[in-house]
């Protein structure tokens, strides 16, 4: 509440075309993906799916530039009061909370399989009768033997945490540090260190993604660790894959912030766009710590 006397009027934008464009874009995109996946599964030679998907993607890209462009213009036009700023802050924080819950679903699946379903399938514990499905199946984690290897060929090995994953942990944690340094520079209006630290953060993020790709190639080509190699591969790739997608998005956000900073946007007091991107980046970092501990080490 911006004080009883001095409240600025809350900015209510006039009509906007962006939401409906976003809706059309999303609809076309998911329709395209769905068509594509289904044609793939049905074994059709050709599919319109990719084309539809691509069109939807173009619409979405156009929308993102347009919508965020409008918001940036309004913000720089001085239309936003401190109260508006708080709305954005609440919005971004709850969005990140929703992302936390999205990851929670996959972490939950991992814990459930490791501590309940898996041991039961191996004949242990309360519901050990499940073992009669595949008598002789023994459960261990990492799961290097699946109940039905015909359908789900087990991996020959897994990724050791102390190679690339450890390196990636160091990279990502350092990137959180450099980003914080960038933020401090922003607060003091030190533009050059700001640019340097932010650029470094982006480079660290890209390096992370590069190593992640290398790890995936190694897993697929040399270890037989794939999406289809039983529940270990499924949880491994689902968790690290979605995390990787989030890192990509984070790098994108930070890059846009970098461009905006080059253009002279933001100042010591007003830089919520930058802060939102950095919140997101720290969130992605924290998820990685969880991944490193529960997916790779334990």
């Amino acid at each position, binding site marked *: 509440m911006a004080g009883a006397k001095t409240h600025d*009027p809350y900015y209510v934008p006039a009509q906007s075309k962006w939401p409906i464009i976003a809706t059309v874009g999303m609809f076309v995109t998911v329709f395209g993906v769905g068509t594509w996946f289904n044609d793939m599964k049905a074994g059709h030679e050709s599919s319109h799916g990719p084309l539809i998907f691509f069109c939807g993607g173009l619409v979405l890209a156009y929308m993102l530039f347009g919508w965020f462009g409008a918001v940036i213009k309004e913000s720089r036009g001085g239309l936003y009061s401190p109260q508006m700023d708080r709305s954005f802050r609440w919005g971004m924080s709850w969005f990140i909370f929703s992302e936390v819950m999205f990851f929670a679903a996959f972490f939950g*699946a991992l814990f459930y399989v490791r501590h309940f379903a898996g041991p039961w399938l191996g004949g242990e514990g309360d519901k050990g009768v499940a073992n009669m499905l595949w008598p002789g199946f023994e459960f261990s984690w990492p799961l290097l033997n699946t109940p039905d290897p015909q359908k789900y060929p087990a991996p020959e090995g897994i990724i050791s945490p102390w190679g690339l994953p450890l390196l990636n942990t160091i990279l990502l944690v350092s990137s959180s540090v450099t980003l914080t340094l960038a933020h401090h520079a922003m607060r003091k209006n030190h533009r050059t260190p700001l640019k340097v630290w932010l650029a470094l953060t982006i480079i660290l993020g890209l390096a992370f993604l590069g190593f992640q790709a290398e790890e995936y190639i190694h897993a697929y080509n040399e270890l037989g660790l794939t999406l289809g190699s039983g529940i270990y591969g499924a949880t491994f790739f689902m968790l690290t894959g979605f995390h990787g997608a989030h890192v990509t998005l984070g790098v994108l956000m930070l890059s846009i912030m970098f461009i905006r900073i080059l253009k002279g946007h933001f100042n010591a007091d007003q830089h919520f766009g930058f802060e939102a991107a950095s919140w997101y980046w720290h969130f992605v970092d924290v998820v990685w710590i969880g991944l490193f501990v529960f997916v790779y080490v334990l």
Partner: protein
Amino acid sequence: MSAVIDHGHAGHDHHHGPAKGLMRWVLTTNHKDIGTMYLWFSFAMFLLGGSFAMVIRAELFQPGLQIVQPEFFNQMTTMHGLVMVFGAVMPAFVGLANWMIPLMVGAPDMALPRMNNFSFWLLPAAFTLLVSTLFMEGGGPNFGWTFYAPLSTTYAPASVTFFIFAIHLMGFSSIMGAINVIATILNLRAPGMTLMKMPLFVWTWLITAFLLIAVMPVLAGVVTMMLMDIHFGTSFFSAAGGGDPVLFQHVFWFFGHPEVYIMILPAFGAVSSIIPTFARKPLFGYTSMVYATASIALLSFLVWAHHMFTVGIPLTGELFFMYATMLIAVPTGVKVFNWASTMWQGSMTFEAPMLFSVAFVILFTIGGFSGLMLAIAPADFQYHDTYFVVAHFHYVLVPGAIFGIFASAYYWLPKWTGHMYDETLAKLHFWMSFIGMNMAFFPMHFVGLAGMPRRIPDYNMMFANFNMISSIGAFAFGATQLLFLFIVIKCIRGGKPAPAKPWDGADGLEWTVPSPAPYHTFSTPPEVK
């Protein structure tokens, strides 16, 4: 977008009315327009989901297969459930939130108006996708609204892919809508409107929005795992790869149980405004209402496996989830007692909103009691997947959620349209709905206890009489809703002009603005003492 900036500086007193034509609705950022669209969309889905229910009841009118094939019957039960839950009930409450929360807290609009419009328009897109699956090769979703794997993965029709994406769109819409609600309530309250002065509808929506943001992503997670199992060879829900179909149920119900509170808490809030108005007494136990709502919401994260008693969970699990579920009856009981105490010795009158609210309290309580019965793990072995369950959740959903929505609609229609609705017709709507729904759903308790399974198009001869009664009640209930449509249209087009405060016992900021509420309200926040 330069037009936007031009308007901005004039924000003080520059009250322009709505734009003209279709584009007003497509491009709008106005919370009242968006609320109206949500409400109409919800009603359209209510009729669509209702017509699926009519197909179900027509088939079950007599034993034997008469009208539809079992395969199509499965699609009808599935689509009925999905459309009612995600298309009728949830959007109706978001529509009410859009209309009323800014008016109740003295805000000029929702906190993020463009995102608000986006949240709405995603819904027609999502439901176009969902309903189109019915026309696809292999038919639409046929695995029940709970879409258990492997029915929804290994054995699903190809259209399941589009079902998954439809769910993603709905989830996106809900999350953005909920973020908007939270930001509005936490940030846009008028000076002096402290948290503990907020109307209960605002409180219950704050808590509902929290639930939505917490569980819709989990739903997104579970459908994503399905998508991966179907198209990319993962084995989340396949024991052959070390996964577990029961994992699906855990993740689904972690979303699913809070979801039922998402559908009922806003109704609690609305009824908590309406009963004091017509009892002409302040709400009994406001503070305890707030805390009861919060504890219901928190407990709702700890009870999900009461839907899974028969699936084979360890004994400790059965016990834990049984007692945790029963615990929820405590705060729920607090609410029911508070409503009853509010009415106690009040000078009550029974206009349509009150009739629906009183019926809400009584019939929702019946649904609550059958819920307690289902919570008894050993007893649930008998009740599970029978019509008793169908009776239970319709008693909480129809006279709970839906009556709550009707009560709200009648209560606030004068504020929305500037006219009084036709009270006689509204009372007729109430009594027909009341009789119809009890006739449709009460007998289901008996056939359920006697063992009639749900989701099956045929049944044993011995259930014939009760099923015929059920179907007649269902047809009556369904037809009556066309009367509601008529009443609303009539009210929009004319009727006795409504004063700013049409209900003499009413309290709250929404009654300080004229009826119909101007296109822009509270551009400068009111002072709340």
